[in-house]
């Protein structure tokens, strides 16, 4: 069965410090990978998605970046964190869609709660 691992679970970082969040998927190959962010009490904002190694699309201009060095590894990074980067970061995977009319269900990791102080 497929599993998704995301770490760390909690992170407190000062403004201006770098960030690296990692996510790995097991039990499947060539997954679509996603990073979402959820501000406190708010909805899910899509940050990045990737349909393959070195194929990453950014949805929201910001000081974050994503990389996919291996098929089942997705990394979210920042060189300098801002207060507004605080939130609940969720990595997710889905199977490659069977058609352009259909998006496979998302399976989320347990999330990283980031507080920028």
């Amino acid at each position: 069965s497929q599993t998704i691992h995301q770490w760390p679970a909690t992170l407190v970082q000062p403004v201006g410090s770098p960030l690296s969040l990692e996510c790995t998927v097991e039990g499947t190959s060539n997954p679509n990978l996603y990073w979402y962010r959820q501000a406190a009490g708010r909805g899910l904002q899509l940050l990045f998605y990737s349909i393959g190694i070195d194929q990453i699309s950014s949805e929201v201009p910001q000081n974050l970046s994503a990389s996919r060095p291996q098929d089942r590894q997705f990394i979210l990074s920042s060189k300098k964190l801002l207060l507004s980067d605080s939130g609940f970061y969720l990595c997710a995977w889905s199977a490659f869609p069977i058609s352009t009319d259909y998006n496979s269900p998302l399976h989320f990791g347990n999330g990283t709660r980031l507080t920028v102080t």
Partner: protein
Amino acid sequence: QQPVQSPQAVILREGEDAVINCSSSKALYSVHWYRQKHGEAPVFLMILLKGGEQKGHEKISASFNEKKQQSSLYLTASQLSYSGTYFCGTSLLGGFKTIFGAGTRLFVKA
């Protein structure tokens, strides 16, 4: 592009029914429904494809009307475990992105 959910919040007593709506100004190709418990990750409930179909999960079902660009989630005889925030996610052409609504907070009390 973000789908619009209504209502924003619902308070129910155990055994009552609720309907959560999701609409889009863009053509919908598929609709996902997820439930998120406080402090946890969202969990997939069901996906609906074009064709106005209904699907069910326990006593939770949903419909999808692509002509009206709407989907509705029906919670029947609600249980305490139904409490959480419900999100609809819509798939845009291309099949790779799921964009979520702002969520509907559901609280079921005994």
